[in-house]
Each structure stands twice: as C-alpha cells, then as structure tokens.
C-alpha cells in the first residue's frame, strides 16, 4: 500500500547536507587531525622512497638474483649480493614460529575466554600482555643463556626419534644442535604468542553467547561446540591474527641474531642444522663493518623485508578487520 503523498512527486531533489559554515575552531580541528592522519601515508611513502633510493645501486646491478641467488661478496671486484638464503631463512623461521605459537595462543585464548573464572581470566590476560611487552633484546638474552641448552635437548630427542623425517634430519652425526632455525623458531614463537592470543581472545569473547548456548541446549559437547560453532565463525579472524604474528616474526632482528648461525649455504628445511638465515638479523650483523657497496645491499635487504612484512600485515589487518565488524567506524 502506498503512503499518503500530498504532492505525489516521486522525484524530490535532495538538499546538500553540508554541516553549514564550520566555525573557525572546527575548521582547524578537522584540518589538524586529518593532516595528522594522512601523515601515516606520508610516512610509508617516505620509508619506501628513502629505502628504494639507497637500495637502487644494488638492485640495478644484481637484478632478480638479489632475491634468488645465494652468495654475498660485496667487496669483490664485481660485488655479488644475493639474499636468497636469508630471505628463505626468514620465511622458514617465521613459519616454524607460527606453527609453534598458534596452538599455544589459541589454547590460551580458549582457556581465558571459556574455561577460567573472570578474575583468573583477567590475570591470565595480563600475563599474556606482559609477554608482549618484553623487549626482544631481553628475550634474546634469555634465548641464548637459558633456552638454548633446553632446546638443544629437545632437538636431540626429536632427531633421535624422528630423524628419518627430512625436517628433523641432521647430516653431521656429532651435530651441536645449537644456533638452528628450530631454536630461532621457538624464540620467535615466544614473541608472537601474545599477538595471536589477543586477537583470538577478542574474537572468542565477541562470539554470540546465544549461538553457544543454543548449541549447548541442543546437547552439544564442549568439543563439538568448539569445532562446529566456535572455530568456523572465528577461524578467519584467527588466521588474520596468525598472519599478524607472521609479520612480526619476519621482521624480528635482535633475538634471532643471538640464537642463529647465519649462513649463505642455504638451509631449505633442516630445522635442526646449525645454520639458517634471517634478513633483518643479517642487516644488523653486517651493518657495523659494511663498505659503501654493502651499505646499499643492506638497504635493499631492508626494502625487501619491509615490503614482505607490509604485504603480510596489510592482508592480516584486512582479514582481522573484516572478522571484527564491531571495530568499524
């Protein structure tokens, strides 16, 4: 049924709804804040431009092999700088770290949201957040002095039991098991657990109670609710959180430098071998004694790791934001 239409004209012209003449104060208020906000773009652009300008000499002379080759000899007559093993090492350690961190983080989030009573949950949340606040140099110190001996043990055990699986295989029968991607992966895992936990926790706690109660009322068990109700609705958000963690892991510098033997003999997936790579750590390790030509090579390495983490983080925040519609606006 139609509404009462006194004029009956369906085409009414919309008026422009500007907020009218803004007061002087408001004009400045919005001008200042929007300039500040746009500074985020400026900052990203500046980083790209400055890094790129300094990286160009290397990028132009090395070409695509900068990413794929595995040789670093910056002071030869014809400098060769190929980042391959470091780049692959960053990815290997990042994925190892994520694989180790994800179960811990999801468990911690599940414990906090669904199992612990409120006060205990609050304490647990504080503990996890505290872990996030630990400086990486402190984690590195702990990693080399306290964790490495323990992890070497774990590595030995896994090598003895699972040595027939390539990733746990070591060539040298008297391997030291120190300074391996395995240990670096654990260190990175310790650092990214809090990020994944806090994203997952938030997504869990925003779950519709009605949905869970409904499932419980239908006779669902804890496990079936977890698998059939909680995980399907929150999985994309959790993946976003994991990607955020991956982004952080790829850029980790100081802590990895302590616990990993950086080597240009590429280590594809032998987690327990005492050699690996990490772009960010390589930059820091070489920086002190870099010649002019290596300086440009390190800048190029920085540009690469920046672009990789930027892509991972953009994807992650896109997924997380979509999984958390209540954060919009």
């Amino acid at each position: 049924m139609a509404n009462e239409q006194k004029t009956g004209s369906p085409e009414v012209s919309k008026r422009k709804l500007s907020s009218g003449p803004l007061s002087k104060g408001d004009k400045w208020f919005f001008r200042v804040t929007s300039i500040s906000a746009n500074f985020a773009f400026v900052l990203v652009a500046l980083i790209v431009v400055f890094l790129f300008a300094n990286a160009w000499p290397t990028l132009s002379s090395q070409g695509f092999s900068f990413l794929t080759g595995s040789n670093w000899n910056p002071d030869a007559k014809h400098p060769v700088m190929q980042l391959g093993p470091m780049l692959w090492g960053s990815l290997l350690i990042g994925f190892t770290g994520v694989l180790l961190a994800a179960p811990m983080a999801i468990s911690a989030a599940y414990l906090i949201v669904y199992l612990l009573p409120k006060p205990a949950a609050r304490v647990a949340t504080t503990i996890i957040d505290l872990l996030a606040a630990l400086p990486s140099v402190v984690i590195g110190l702990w990693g080399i002095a306290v964790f490495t001996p323990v992890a070497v043990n774990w590595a030995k055990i896994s090598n003895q039991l699972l040595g027939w699986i390539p990733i746990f295989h070591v060539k040298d029968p008297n391997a030291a098991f120190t300074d391996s991607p395995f240990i670096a992966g654990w260190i990175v895992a310790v650092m990214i657990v809090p990020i994944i936990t806090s994203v997952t926790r938030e997504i869990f706690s925003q779950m519709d109670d009605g949905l869970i109660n409904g499932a419980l009322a239908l006779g669902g068990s804890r496990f079936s609710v977890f698998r059939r109700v909680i995980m399907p609705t929150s999985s994309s958000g959790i993946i976003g959180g994991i990607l955020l963690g991956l982004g952080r892991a790829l850029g980790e510098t100081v802590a990895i430098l302590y616990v990993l033997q950086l080597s240009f003999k590429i280590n594809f997936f032998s987690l327990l071998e005492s050699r690996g790579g990490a772009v960010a750590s390589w930059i820091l390790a070489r920086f002190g004694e870099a010649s002019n030509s290596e300086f440009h090579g390190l800048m190029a390495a920085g540009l690469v790791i920046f672009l990789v983490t930027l892509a991972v983080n953009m994807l992650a925040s896109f997924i997380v934001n979509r999984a958390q519609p209540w954060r919009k606006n």
Partner: protein
Amino acid sequence: MSNLTSRQPWAQSSATFKLQLAIVSTIPSVIGLLFVILGNLDFSIGLIGVFLPIQVLTVAAFGWRKAKRRGLSDALLIFFTIFFSTLVLVLLLSVLGSVIFEGFKALSPHFLYENNRYVGTTTSLEYGGVGHAILGTLLIVLLTTIAAVPLGIAMAVYLTQSQSKMRGVVRTVTQSLAGLPSVVAGLFVLAIMQFTHIERSGFTGALALFPLMLPTVARVAEESLRLVPSDLRMAALALGAPNYKAFFQVILPAAKSGIITALLLGLARVVGETAPLILTINMNNTTNLNPFNGPIASLPTYVYSFLGSNYSSSQQRAWGAALVLLIVVGILFGSARILSRKKSLKTKPVKKAKK
C-alpha cells in the same frame, strides 16, 4: 558455605568423581617425575616420552568412562588447552625468572647511577653501572614521545571523530605500520641521515623509534576514544557545541585514562627497542645529557654490547641492565594496567543507571 553448595546442585560432584579427577591429574606427572629422578632420565625426555603419553591416555580413558566418545573429545580438548597454556606460562616465567635471578646478582645501588667511564669487558662489577644508559634511554624516548604522542592522538581523533571515507584506509595503513620491522625503521633514518648529513646522536635514535611508537599510540588512543559512548558526543553537539569543544571538554576528559594508557603502552613498546638504536646512535660509556650531539648510551644497546663479550662480568652486566630495562617496562606496563582497571570500575555505575 554449606548453604551455597546445597543451592548449587550442579556444583556438587560425587566424591568418586573428584577422586578420579585427582588421580588422573596427578598420577602421570608423578610417574614422569619418578622416571626422571630414579631412572636418571633427562627431564625433557621424561616430559615428552613418559609424562605426555601417559597423561593423554589417562585423560582419554577418564573421559571415555564418563561419557564415551563425547567425554573423550571433551577431556582431550581441555587437556591440550591446559597443556599448551601451561607451556606459555612456563616460557614467560622462565624469561622473567632468569632475568630477575641473574640480574639481581649484578644489581647494587652504584650499578644504577654510575656510568661506565673506566669499565672494560673484564672489569669487576664493583665498578660502573647503567646510570648513563638509563638517562640516555629517558632522553631518547622523551624526544620520541614529544612527537609521537600528540600525532598519534590526533590520528585517533581523526579515526573516531571525523566522517571521512578515508578512515578505513588510514586505519589499515596505521595497523600495517605497527608491524614495521624495527630494523627497517633504523635503516630508514639512516637513509635520511645519509641524505641530510645529520650526525648520529640521541636525536637520530629518537627519530628511528618514532615510526614504531606512533601506531601503538594511535591504536590504543583510538580504542579508548571509541569506548566513550557516542551519546555523549551527540548530547554535546545537540547543546550547540562545535566539534572541537565537544572533543576537548566532553570526550577527552571521559577518555583520559585511556589516553594515558596509550602513552604508557607506546613507551613500553619502544623503550626496549635495540636494532634501530644500534643503527642510528653511537654508543657511549659516559653520561651524555645532550641528545642532539655526540654518542649516547641506552639500556638496550648496553645489554647488546655487553652480551657480545664472553667474559662473565660482561654477561653479568648484560643481565643487570636487562633487569633494569625489565623493571622500567614493568612500571610502564603496570601503571597502564592499573589505569585501565580504574576506568572499567568507573563505568560500572553508568551501566546500572541505564538499566
């Protein structure tokens, strides 16, 4: 007490159930420990090879007895949740414990205020300290804060108060900046220095920390501004307030503790950053109070440089400085916690009134 339990029939579980639960949760660890102590077994092997399989089996059996398959899967879910969460807790306590334990050995009053003027890698701990590094860190971080906090808050204001369509993009870019590898921040400033011929000083260090602090401040400030009910803004506007007055007089006071939390968490984020400082400042063994000129010390680079040496006194210095750094982070983090706790208490009466 008895009254309460009688009113909560679901809270009463039979004595046999409790006994079974106790057996299930203690026996495997006891067996594991016995193996480790009597069998002189390595702790890790005892944990992974003995305790874990027995525990999984007993938990599974317990669940199966209670409710067949449903009980089994529930019991395993809870077991693994607790197992992995305990792992996180153990890792964290191990970090905290070792830093506190080792750090205390180096800590003494003079360690906190003396500088390292005559200290070498083998100098005994009776001499020297981190006083110059504490001051250096404070100066560098102060400079970063002066720039990053107002800008971060302004960004948060834009993200919450304006109606621009660009907000989503700005938010995504800011969030991605939060994942900026710290070494890249250092390289960036290095490239700027190369270009402008600025000398290394505390200032360049502060510049390198800036892109790391900004997104943290912006995000936390945005979240706290968002917690202010939009009703308040509407009420202020309906009373004829221009936007900026509504913000400064109504919204900002209501979000005050959240804004301070943003400041504290931003500080906690950068105070321990190492890589950017290694790239952009020259380390110093003496006190330098001028952040715009000359080499300057900082706590993270202090840890880094002494860790590089194998002498035990240097290692001790590294632990001591790490403990001081941890205490600084702890104070920042703790005050942020207390502030946000207070805020949540304060908003409770509002909710009640609304009902």
